């Protein structure tokens, strides 16, 4: 475990304001050459290190520290070293906005890498707009958003949910005809399920063949729901569960599935929020064959991935430490940001935002991801089956990379919208009335 840097940094920088003059004077005295006292480029890291989301977000903080350390070994960027500024928004959504403000105004960071839940992202949006800074958001999300100051390196629904459903409908996926959409009760699952429902109906699935179920955060008693799923699956048509269940609730859900004997060969469960990290707490021998859709799996065989895993395990001094999809999103996002700074020749927010679209960076699955004008990136989509050792076997993947679509083509009101920050300088351009703004 890393110590809580946030606290140390805050103290350091509060003092810095007071002692600024003295410090630089001292530096000059010690170093003797004012030219070398180049200021570092500060990178904000806005991930919860305590509270409910710490389980997922702490890892992302660590991966950012590793990336920054590595970049500095290569000599930093534009001849300046990078410096991480870590704050802890403690899984508290309003605190995310406060901490974002602190990062930008006090620490003067060049960009922020952070947030996990959609509600935390929504809470920091106004801050990034007002103070004009850059946020890299690494988690798969519900779409229906494109902001000038945010770069979405996680998957949009068309890069995860839709391909997963397509796979299940295919012969290899089991020719599924009946669907349970189960999710945690908040914005990401609700929007994703709305999109999926519209998509399934467009594909000719009848309304009575779709069951939608929501549970509260941290739901731990799944007996009723799992037995309802079993009942729903007994109608003589192949049934699958599409799970947008988030966070802590997954472990008891999978334990109940295993105990009630729901096998992947009978009713497969495809999850959008369950990765290697989440499965770490579960005995997966009874869950073999259940699925997850992501844009990256640790088990992908690839030299770049092998190198990353080795570095990560060395950095965390834990040879069993797993990697997951949002980590890869940060790797891609960070490399794109570095390239954009090099292209722009400055860390100035506006210039970097303009430089980013079109930038390409290698992802860890062997492709080149590209930042698109809608601030989403291109990604491969993969379906993995859970193995007995808690890793995933990739059983299907898209031929090429899929471009992220900010506004779903399957929702009324959103299908006419288009995001283009290069040509149209607009996040929600309405193609029907040819005007910016829905």
């Amino acid at each position, binding site marked *: 475990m890393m110590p809580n840097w946030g606290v140390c940094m805050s103290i350091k920088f509060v003092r810095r304001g007071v002692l600024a003059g003295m410090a630089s004077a001292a530096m000059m005295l010690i170093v003797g050459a004012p030219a070398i006292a180049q200021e570092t480029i500060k990178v904000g890291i806005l991930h919860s290190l305590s509270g409910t989301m710490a389980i997922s977000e702490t*890892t992302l903080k660590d991966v950012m520290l590793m990336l920054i350390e590595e970049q500095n070994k290569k000599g930093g960027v534009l001849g300046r070293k990078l410096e991480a500024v870590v704050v802890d928004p403690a899984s508290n959504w309003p605190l995310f906005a406060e901490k974002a403000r602190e990062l930008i105004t006090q620490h003067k960071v060049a960009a922020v890498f952070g947030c996990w839940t959609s509600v935390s992202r929504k809470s920091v949006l106004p801050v990034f707009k007002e103070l004009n800074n850059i946020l890299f958001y690494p988690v798969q999300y519900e779409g229906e958003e494109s902001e000038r100051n945010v770069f979405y390196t996680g998957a949009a629904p068309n890069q995860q949910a839709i391909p997963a459903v397509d796979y299940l409908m295919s012969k290899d996926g089991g020719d599924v005809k009946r669907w349970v959409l189960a999710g945690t009760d908040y914005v990401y699952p609700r929007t994703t399920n709305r999109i999926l429902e519209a998509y399934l109906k467009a594909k000719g699935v009848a309304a009575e063949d779709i069951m939608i179920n929501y549970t509260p955060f941290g739901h731990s008693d799944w*007996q009723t729901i799992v037995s309802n799923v079993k009942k729903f699956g007994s*109608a003589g048509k192949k049934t699958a569960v599409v799970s947008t269940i988030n966070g802590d609730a997954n472990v008891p859900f999978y334990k109940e599935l295993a105990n009630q004997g729901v096998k992947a060969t009978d009713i497969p469960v495809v999850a959008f929020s369950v990765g290697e990290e989440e499965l770490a*707490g579960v005995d997966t021998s009874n869950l073999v064959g259940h699925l997850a859709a992501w844009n990256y799996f640790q088990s992908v065989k690839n030299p770049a991935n092998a190198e990353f895993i080795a570095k990560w395990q060395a950095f965390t001094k834990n040879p069993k430490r797993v990697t997951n999809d949002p980590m890869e999103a940060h790797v891609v996002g960070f490399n794109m940001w570095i390239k954009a700074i090099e292209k722009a020749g400055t860390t100035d927010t506006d210039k970097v935002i303009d430089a980013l679209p079109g930038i390409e960076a290698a992802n860890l699955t062997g492709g080149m991801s590209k930042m698109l004008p809608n601030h989403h990136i291109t990604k491969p989509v993969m379906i993995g089956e859970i193995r007995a050792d808690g890793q995933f076997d990739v059983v299907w993947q898209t031929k090429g990379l899929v471009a992220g679509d900010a506004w779903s083509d399957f929702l009324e009101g959103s299908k006419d919208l288009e995001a283009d920050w290069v040509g149209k300088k607009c996040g929600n351009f309405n193609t029907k009335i040819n005007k910016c703004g829905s």
Partner: protein
Amino acid sequence: MIQVRAFCAAVISLFAFLMFAPAAQADFASSLARFAQDEFSETALAIDEIAASGGSRAQQVLEALGSARLFVDPASKKVYWRAATSDRTIHDAANGEPVADPPAGLQVVRINNRLRGATLNAIGALTLMAPDPARRRAAAESIFKSRDASALAPLEAAIKNEKDPAIAALFAQARAVLMLAEPQTTKDQQLEAISILRMRADIGAIAALRSISATADADVKALAADAVTAIEARLKLMSHVQNVWYGLSLGSVLLLAAIGLAITFGVMGVINMAHGEMVMLGAYTTFVVQEVFRAYAPAWFDWSLAVALPLAFLFTGLVGVAIERGVIRFLYGRPLETLLATWGVSLILQQAVRTIFGPSNREVGAPSYMSGAFDLLGLSVTWGRMWIIVFTLFVFVSLLLALKHTSLGLHMRAVTQNRRMASAMGIRTPWVDAMTFGLGSGLAGIAGVALSQIDNVSPNLGQSYIIDSFMVVVFGGVGNLWGTLVSAFALGVANKFLEPVAGAVLAKIFILVLLILFIQKRPRGLFALKGRAVEA
């Protein structure tokens, strides 16, 4: 009738023989070679061919494939298997002989769900005659689920051979499903199949009955629809029983989580926000014990919970005593400060665990007697839940006995009823306070051992139970153990009856609203203590 069936069986088996015959001639070695291609379509062909070749050799290969024990040497394209995941001996798949020096870099043959299903079906057909009754049972179930028509011939043969009437009934049900799916079956056979399925009366039977094609005879369809209605009516009745059972199970979890709080908050009156963290520490104790077992005595893993229970009780009990001596004793009579102080303690404990064990979930395994489910009159009962109910009642009874019949229990009751009188009688009240708090914390610890079986073992484990625990204790009546029992089961059952109607989110809200209304009416809970103790 029987003659017709026998004739049909003969025709079908002849048909099956004709179908299998060319495939059986396919060379076993060339079938194996298909695995080395690492293509799902090739693996699918290999499964069909090997299944058709039959024999124990095929069975070994398919079972290894189904449980990821089949390997390919990428260099020589040869195929190998292991008898069990833990067994290091490598066998050559071509002849089943153990290999002395297996090649390095063996890769598992990958399969997906479709192939996994096909493998299970093939194994099902191959193991219909297995000497082990459990395997024959599993084979019947897998054919019943797969409705794989090619299994009909081996199934007919197996039915003739079967001595065990229970398994014979399963075979008959499996055959009934296949008959219904088969287009050639006569009307009489279909009607008979429906009546067999009607006897089975579970959701699997409904699924089979619903899948009858629309072109079937009107009588057949009517009988099938009738059977479905009958089974559904029975299942509906069962679902109420099931709700009660789930409610009891949820209630037992609530009771287990709350029982420690019933002591620290109920009896002592300490608003103990760190209660949930005691549960968490108990769960982490289980994790540590299991890690030790995994490292030093994997064969004794089933005993890990038995070892973890007393250790968790002692450890969390000691932590409880330390908290009481270190913090709470200075704050008696100041509930607000106690609340804040114990909340602070809970945050410290959470972050300490996060620092030591990391923020992610830890895996706590289920001993064999706690995994899986069994069927009780059509009700699927999971072993883990059942043991938790038994365990909770055991803890509850032990606690009652301890309070009634031990000297510590007597002192505790004396101190809570009249502290000054007890003190005047020579009872060391501070010591009793510490012990009582330790007991409550220890109980939370053993709750953690049980909850580690059904929930996350993460630093946040405690937070998800603290609200529910307070709810149970307050609803039951502060200071009354029986009240806690009744309230936990009442909340559990009410929740489970609301959940199918209102959904999990609304059910929880309804329960909270009902609880608030109830507390308005009866502020002291279900079973309020009467007399002087209330004022103390």
